[in-house]
Structure formats: structure tokens, C-alpha cells
């Protein structure tokens, strides 16, 4: 018989390295037509980070995502970056890029100020224009200002900057300290169906509410959450590297190491918790790793709700769940109807 159950998993997760410096540097070049080129040493590893980083540069310069071309991951040409690790890219690299773009923008403001007959600190970059704050009718296209800066004033609008999250070392005996600059929080809820005759667990539905500060690109945040859940489902129910008595792996292939496929994916509802972190670029924190954190917990709690067994060792394979159900039922083997 199949039993349904619901379970919840709640978590917190830090952004960046534990205490250790993990800086990023960036360079933003505004071209003479008002488009821009961003140089970053981080690597696009499939998560869409370069799109998000381009959006951060674009926001600071008041231009669109498509106006920024991102050059990345070449140690000869791009500035130092600690890399795609520790859910740090949006926060740390993003902060460096925001500062670099601010420096490039400052040159544009200094060039535009006499053209608009105001001081540089009265200007803002909005909608591909350099305009006077609170008096938007006095403005110039960013392209005109960039052209003026480069070819008339001889000041190419290029900015570089770096950022490193502020931390405080942990005490060696008590661990007290400020190991991270900021944290994110999330909850996932799972609905499962457990077959008490086979121990098979099916995840039917999951809801996920994740905090990432400002979602620079909500679509990519949703993608991360869905991907994290798929990884979490594998961790909860299927994946396990097995070793023989001689310490050799017995399932080092995708035939015997079982991972979730699209057919194992439940229906998922994703929500982004509204939040703003004053230390992040435009309030953003990060989302990469945390998405895979609470899934297994939520699923195992749902299994417990469904059939009353507590799985204390991952993964909750059908064998393990069935064994636990049998133990709970006093080791009685349920009589199966004889085959006709």
C-alpha cells in the first residue's frame, strides 16, 4: 500500500570563505558607443554567473544586460578572482564589479558635468543616459559622454576595483568569531509517496522558498533552485559510491551509480524570499549551494510522516526503507497474495 507524507527542511548557509581572504578583482571598460566590456577572472561553470555579473555592471552604468560583454577566465587577460566556489560569485565578484563600474562611471560623470553645467556628484546613470538627479530633462546619451571622454578629453572610462568580504578570525578554543560576511536562509517542503511493500519512495511535490538577497536574475535563481533540488533528491534517495573489501569502487559508472533523471523530478514551486542585504551588490547575496542543502532533510521527514520510520543513514534507498518498515512492524513479513 502506498502512503503519503509531508516533510520540511530548513537551513542557513554562509556566503564566501570561512574567515580566509577570498578576494575578487574586476575591470569595467565603457566603450565609445556606450556599450561596455567587463573583465573578470571567474569561470562560468554552468550556473549563469556571467549573465548575473554582466547585469550588475549594467545596472551600475545605467545600461542594459545586452550592452555589456563579459570576458572571463583567462589568467593572462582577466583580473584575479578566487573563483566559482563557496556561493561567492554574485556577492564577492559582484561587489568588485559594482565598484569597478562605479570607478568607470565617475570618469563619465566628470566628463559630462561641464557638458551639462552641473557638478559630477549631481549626476546619475539611468536608462543609457547620464542625467541630472531630480532634473532628468537635462541629460546626455551615455554614448555621447563616452565618446567625448575617450576622443576629446582623452580619458577612456575604465575602472578597476577589488572586494574581499570582511571577517574576524575564529578563536582556536571556542570558535567564536565572524567567519562570514553574510548568510542566506531557506525552507523546502516535500510531499512523498512510500510503498510499504517495496520501500520505494517517490517525491511527488516540493515547494522551495529561498533567500538570496536581491535576485539579480530571478530566472537564473529559479534554475539554481530546481537544479539543487534534483541534486538533493539524488542525495536523499539514490546516490551512493560503494566500495568492496579491498577499497575499490564497485559502481564507478552511471549504470550502477543511480542518479535522478527528469522522470524522478517532482513538480516544484519556487519562491524567492524578498530580502535586501546592505553589504551585497544591489542587495544580493548568493544561491548556488544552499539549494541542495535542505532537500534530503525534507524528504526524510516526509518519509517519517508517511510510514513512521526514521531514516538515520542516507541514502533512503528502497531496501533501507523497507527494512525499517519491517523492523517497525516487529519483523513480520507481510503475506503477499499468491500469484494466480
Amino acid at each position, binding site marked *: 500500500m502506498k502512503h503519503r507524507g509531508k516533510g520540511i527542511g530548513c537551513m542557513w*548557509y554562509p556566503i564566501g570563505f570561512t574567515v580566509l581572504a577570498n578576494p575578487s578583482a574586476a575591470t569595467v571598460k565603457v566603450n565609445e558607443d556606450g556599450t561596455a566590456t567587463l573583465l573578470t577572472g571567474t569561470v562560468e561553470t554552468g550556473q549563469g554567473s556571467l549573465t548575473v555579473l554582466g547585469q550588475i555592471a549594467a545596472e551600475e552604468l545605467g545600461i542594459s544586460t545586452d550592452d555589456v560583454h563579459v570576458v572571463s577566465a583567462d589568467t593572462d587577460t582577466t583580473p584575479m578572482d578566487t573563483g566559482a566556489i563557496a556561493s561567492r560569485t554574485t556577492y564577492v565578484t559582484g561587489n568588485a564589479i559594482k565598484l569597478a563600474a562605479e570607478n568607470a562611471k565617475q570618469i563619465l560623470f566628470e566628463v559630462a558635468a561641464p557638458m551639462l553645467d552641473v557638478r559630477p556628484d549631481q549626476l546619475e546613470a539611468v536608462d543609457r543616459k547620464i542625467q541630472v538627479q531630480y532634473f532628468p530633462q537635462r541629460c546626455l546619451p551615455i554614448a555621447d559622454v563616452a565618446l567625448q571622454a575617450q576622443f576629446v578629453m582623452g580619458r577612456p572610462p575604465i575602472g578597476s576595483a577589488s572586494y574581499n568580504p570582511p571577517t574576524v578570525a575564529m578563536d582556536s578554543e571556542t570558535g567564536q568569531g565572524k567567519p562570514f560576511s553574510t548568510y542566506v536562509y531557506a525552507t523546502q517542503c516535500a510531499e512523498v509517496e512510500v510503498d510499504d511493500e517495496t520501500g520505494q519512495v517517490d517525491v511527488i511535490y516540493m515547494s522551495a522558498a529561498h533567500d538570496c538577497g536581491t535576485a539579480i536574475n530571478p*530566472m537564473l535563481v529559479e534554475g539554481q533552485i530546481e537544479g539543487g533540488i534534483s*541534486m538533493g533528491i539524488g542525495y536523499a534517495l539514490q546516490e551512493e559510491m560503494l566500495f568492496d573489501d579491498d577499497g*575499490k569502487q564497485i559502481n564507478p559508472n552511471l549504470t550502477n551509480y543511480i542518479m535522478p533523471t527528469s522522470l524522478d523530478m517532482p513538480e516544484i514551486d519556487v519562491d524567492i524570499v524578498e530580502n535586501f542585504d546592505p553589504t551585497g551588490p544591489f542587495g544580493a547575496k548568493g544561491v548556488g549551494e544552499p539549494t541542495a542543502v535542505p532537500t534530503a532533510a525534507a524528504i526524510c521527514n516526509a518519509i517519517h510522516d508517511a510510514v513512521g520510520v526514521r531514516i538515520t543513514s542516507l541514502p533512503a534507498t528502497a531496501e533501507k526503507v523497507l527494512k525499517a518498515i519491517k523492523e517497525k512492524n516487529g519483523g513480520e513479513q507481510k503475506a503477499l497474495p499468491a500469484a494466480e
Partner: protein
Amino acid sequence: MADDVKTKEKTESLESLRKADDNLRLPTVPERTLFPKEIGIAPAREQTPAVGQRATRPDGRMHGLGQTKYIDDMFFPGMLHAKIKRACISHAKIKSIDVSEAEKMPGVMATLIGKEIPVNSFGPSYQDQPLLADDIVRHAGDGVAAVAAVTEQQALDALEKIKIVYEELTPVYDPMEAMKDDAVKIHNGESNVYSSKTIIKGDVEQGFKDSDFIFEKTFTTQMVEHVPMEPHASIAEWDANGRVTLHTSLGRITLGRADVSRTLDLPINRIRMIATVVGGNFGGKNEITTEPILALLSKKTGRPVKCVFTREDEFISSTTRHPFVMEYKTGMSKEGKIMARKVRLVCDGGAYCSWSETTLGKACILSAGPYNIDNLHVDAYAVYTNKTMTGAMRGFGAPQVCFAYESHMDDMAKELGIEPLEIRFMNAFNEGSTSPTGQLLEAVVVTDSLKMASERFGWKEWQK
């Protein structure tokens, strides 16, 4: 008509040629892919302000059209293919390695063993891992020699001819066994425990005394692989100026370059590391694997050298997620408030440290959960075993401890007769809460996330 036949014949002969090339595993001229030349730009990419836009990815189009060039798609004139010989024995002393027969094999241009590497050790915290084991093998996936040949098959065939004499050593696989004083020591040292962390906040014993109920449970987790779609892959090219260019699937080129510099004893400015669009990382591509080996093979042969891991290489020789043993003891008031918590974490660190230090540290801090606990004591240990090394993986110890603290939470809620959602609301961090390390937390939205996820789920109305 006649023209059609001719074209068909031509196509067929081209195809059979391609097939023959495939069989030989020689690089072929790839077929031209046609793609629309006029591109449409998604409106979200052109809108301002840029932040908050659901902007599509510029690489998405390339992926969709199959135009993205991963390492495996890259070819350079004269390029060789490298393969690594794995130990297939989990703990042993290497008595001798003989590559002479392998070097005589057809197509083989060079071999490499650990002793030829200028500084044969690396690692982000401790440099305890050899690129190719030269003295002791510590897990079955350890590389012991490398071959560069004209084709992958020739390199594989040559691996079979490498003769290695081992003296077997007693292995230890269980981290709890490995922690014992009399356990075999995997690295020279007094203990297999290579990292330990402690967090102490408040007075945990007093907290237990003040509690109405004490709950204890032990949780364990398994070892898993990152399984990125693209396995580790690199191409090294040593040039006439003594500079080496590495195309690699690493997610951290700055650290990668520093590691290559250290292991090859080369100034950093003579190393260029270019990361392609990486086909999945999840923490598994934070460290070098074969890059310095390929650089030396390229130096020996004067040709570019490529190595793409097979799925098996990926499983047996790259980093994995730490299995944890987690002992939880929690004191609760009868109202459902967490009064005190004691946690002991043992993480199976595998044969080398890799990112265990970081994993242990994060697990330690996060093990209390997003809950206000005034009295807390966490002890955590990373232990060497003769298994595949464990390292960085999405969550750095957090999925392990989250499984434990959230399972534990539900058990306690059930015993106390409190609704699972309710007990979490009662204990969750709020704005200005103090973390286990004494940090004041801001922009805290634990309760908001609980509310949102449970409402979306329909938690209260849900019925079996």
C-alpha cells in the same frame, strides 16, 4: 539524376571516411553546423534597469545550437592524448615502476612518473596529495604513471605495459576505526585525524540540566560524486619560450595557476590558464588534477597534450562528498525551546585533505541549524581513510548536518507533541540573532522562508 547519384556516392564515401577516422580515433574535420546568422535579442536583455530582469544567457544560444566548445571539442595540430595509470590497490608502498615496455608501444611519445615532477604535491590546505604517487599509494584511484600517445587507444594500450611492484600495506576504510590510536597511519604522523574544530557557546552542561527532555541520535551520510556532465579535461601546450598554456575545465583558475607554478617550479607569469565554458562544477573542479602532468608531457614531446577523464576516472580519482557520522544530543524545554545542543561530527576525509578543512569548519558552524541555541558545544574531526578523497562539493558539509538537525528536530517535535512547522518558528533565528560563533546576524529571513514554503505547499490544509 546522375548528379544526384554522384552526390550520394560522394556523401557516402565521405561518411565511410569519417567512420574509418572514428574507428582510428583520429581527429576529423567536424561537419559544418549551420545556424541562423540574424540573431534575435530577448527583450529582457535590452531593458533597463538591468537588475531584476529575467535576462537570458548569452551562452544558452551556443549550448542550444551545439556550438559551445568544451575541451573535448578542441584540437591543436600534432596534439597527443594522455592517459593515467591508476593504482587499483588502496594502500601500498611502491617498490618500482618500469615504463620501458610502455615506451616501446606504437604511437607512444612520452611517459611520466611522479619522481619526474619537480614538486610532486598539492592541496588547498595541506599539500599532502601527489600528482602521481611516487612512494605510497593511499587509495585505489591514485595515479601512478602517465602516457602520452598519438591516439587515446594507443595511450590506453601502453598503460597495460607499465610494470609496478607494490608492497601491500594494511588499509583502513572506516573513519571511526581510523581515529583509534592503534590504527595504521595513512600519512606519516601521530594520528589519522588531520583537522579538528570546536565551537563553544554558553554552558552546554548547565543547559542540559535546565532542560526538561534530552534527545540523542546518530546520523550518517554516504559518499557521492558531483557527476558533472563534462568530466575533468585539460590541454597543455609548452611553447618555445618555456611558457605553458593550459586550457582547462577548472572553476578556479587563479588557484589552479598557483598550483601549477608550485608543482612545476615555474614563475607564475610563465603560466597561462584559460578556462572554457565548464560543463558543470558543483565543487569538483576547484583543484588541479592532471594539468602539471600534461604540461610536463608537452614539454617532453614538444606537442600539445590533452587528457579528458572517463566517467570512471571521474569517480575513482576526483574529489567526492564527505561521508559524515553525526552524533546529536539536544536538551529541550517542555514548551519546545532548544536549551542546549552537543554535536560530534566525524568526517571521512578519504586519502587526502583537499577541502576537508573548509568542509569541517562550515559543517561545524552550521550544525546547530538556523536556530537560537544559547548553549552549544560542537566538536568535529576530519580523518584520513584509504578511500577516494573527499573535497569541496555543493554545500561543504551543510547537506550532511542539515539532514541530521532537521531529522532530529522532527523527532523531538513528535515526542513533545508540537507541530513540526511550529517548533521551527519557535526556535528560528530572527533579525539580530547571535550565530553559534557569536556573530550578530542581519537580513535574516528564516521565518519568512518557513512561512512562504509552507503556505505554497498548503502545509496546514494538507491531508494524507
